[in-house]
């Protein structure tokens, strides 16, 4: 596992300072001689640095395998793709699961509350380490998209292109509500122990699984669920008049919950959802989102999905409107799909091909200095 130790002190939004902390990352493709082909990808709530190929820990396909790889949307034959695990995460970066050398136990809820801003500032160090002066692009969906927005506002003109996908500039009450539901599920599991559980023995797995089940519903659309499962029964010909998983949708959700706990830490789930809830870029700039992008020369390409009700088109469009208000270079399209918020992770050909063409054309246009 690749990681860097960030020695420099990072002042967090909560007021605490951290230093000498690890940041785990992965790269795909090669940085060219001109060092102008680097793309920094930000992962979503439950992602990690393994965007593509086989994740060496879970042995499963990387979370953005449809989009990242040779010949794909983020073409690793052409681009140097970097992805880091966010701080607060549980795939090697500094998080609540990190062992505290003083106690030899996980830091747990003694870990400071972090924000999207903190995540982005931590990852900036990776660019210094990789000696990348200017990124070709920053991209990400959902919480990854929020990081894209925060990144371009914190580091203006560090990236030539920004692709915030299926995200928002300000977490809505509904978003916070769903996250709170997940957190309550975890915290009401008796194994949670105020967050000071020992990862090796008893974890709040039941609570985390319920959190995942609830969240998973928000990633899909009603129509998508209906088409995939309907009222189909799970390996039985009739209802059993009990509380077993009679329906396929129940069995599916239980499965999603159970596999999730094997790869994710409950405390990380608390910290990262909190960071999302605290995200309000509009407020950071005094109620005027346009100010977050003042004087930007970055080309923005914003994408939303018709069936995404978690981060609906209207919220993505607010970002477009803020950018247009200051004459920024912005493209926007709403992709038609019934796959819900999860669309950005799935095989949605229109979405994948539009990104691929956009990046390839823009890269050559910039090189030919046409734009």
């Amino acid at each position: 596992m690749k990681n860097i130790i960030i020695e420099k002190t990072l002042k967090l939004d909560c007021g605490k300072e951290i230093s000498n902390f690890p940041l785990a990352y992965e790269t795909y493709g090669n940085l060219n001689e001109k060092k102008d082909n680097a793309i920094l990808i930000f992962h979503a709530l439950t992602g990690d640095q393994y965007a593509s190929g086989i994740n060496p820990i879970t042995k499963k396909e990387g979370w953005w395998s449809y989009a990242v790889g040779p010949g794909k949307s983020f073409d690793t034959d052409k681009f140097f793709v970097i992805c880091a695990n966010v701080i607060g995460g549980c795939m090697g970066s500094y998080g609540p699961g990190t062992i505290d050398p003083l106690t030899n136990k996980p830091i747990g809820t003694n870990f400071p509350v972090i924000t999207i801003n903190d995540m982005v500032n931590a990852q900036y160090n990776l660019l210094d380490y990789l000696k990348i002066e200017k990124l070709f692009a920053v991209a990400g969906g959902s919480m990854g998209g929020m990081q894209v927005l925060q990144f371009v506002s914190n580091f203006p003109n560090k990236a030539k292109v920004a692709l915030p996908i299926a995200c928002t500039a300000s977490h809505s009450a509904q978003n916070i509500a769903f996250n709170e539901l997940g957190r309550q599920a975890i915290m009401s599991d008796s194994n949670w122990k105020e967050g000071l559980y020992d990862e090796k023995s008893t974890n709040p797995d039941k609570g985390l699984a319920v959190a995942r089940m609830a969240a998973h519903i928000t990633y899909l659309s009603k129509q998508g669920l209906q088409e995939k499962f309907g009222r189909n029964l799970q390996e039985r010909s009739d209802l059993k008049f009990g509380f077993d998983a009679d329906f396929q949708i129940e069995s599916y959700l239980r499965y999603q919950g159970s596999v999730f706990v094997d790869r994710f830490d409950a405390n990380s789930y608390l910290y990262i959802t909190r960071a999302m809830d605290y995200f309000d870029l509009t407020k950071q700039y005094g109620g005027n989102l346009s100010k977050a992008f003042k004087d930007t020369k970055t080309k923005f390409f914003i994408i939303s999905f018709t069936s995404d009700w978690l981060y609906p088109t209207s919220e993505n469009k607010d970002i477009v409107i803020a950018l247009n208000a200051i004459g920024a270079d912005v493209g926007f399209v709403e992709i038609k799909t019934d796959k819900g918020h999860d669309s950005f992770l799935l095989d949605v050909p229109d979405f994948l091909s539009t990104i691929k063409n956009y990046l390839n054309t823009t890269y050559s246009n910039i090189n030919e200095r046409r734009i």
Partner: protein
Amino acid sequence: MKEEFKVISKFIKEKSRVLDVGCGDGILMEYLLKNKVVDVRGLEISKEKVKKCLSKGLAVIEGDAENDLKQFPDLSFDYVILSQTLQAFMSPENVIENLLRVGKKVIVTIPNFGHWKVRLDLLLKGEMPVTKNLPYQWYNTPNLHMCTIQDFYNFCKNKRVNIYKSISLNGEKISNIKTSNLKYKNLISELGIFLLEK
């Protein structure tokens, strides 16, 4: 229509900011990028066409002119172009008003309903005209508000909109429209191209 693009391109000064409303596949945007040093943006209602534009790296946003022009600040573009779509809006009046708000100058092109073939169709056949520029039947046409060059002149006069230049296109023939030849040009032009200012 290449001639239309040529005329529009001639209207536009180098290094200006341009918004193409209803930019379609982005052909005019590409033409302007290639032939003029301009900063050009597009607004388009069709998802398919927006995807095509974005695939070409063009800065196009999905949206419709009747609702989404609001987001652009006053006079934020040097030129706003509306090519052959005015007649398709619910309220052409509001759209023109918004175009003139967003753009320092506005270029509007209209298919001319006053063309002699159109008049003849209605006069002789007594049927709604179907022509090369207006290929639809009355029951499936997206064109809700057809007008003639004369109508557009009258509209501008009523609304106190200055027509800086007006060009007639008839096939490949490009000519100037003046008050003195308006009646005649209204008869022979397939397309009218106008450069407007509030």
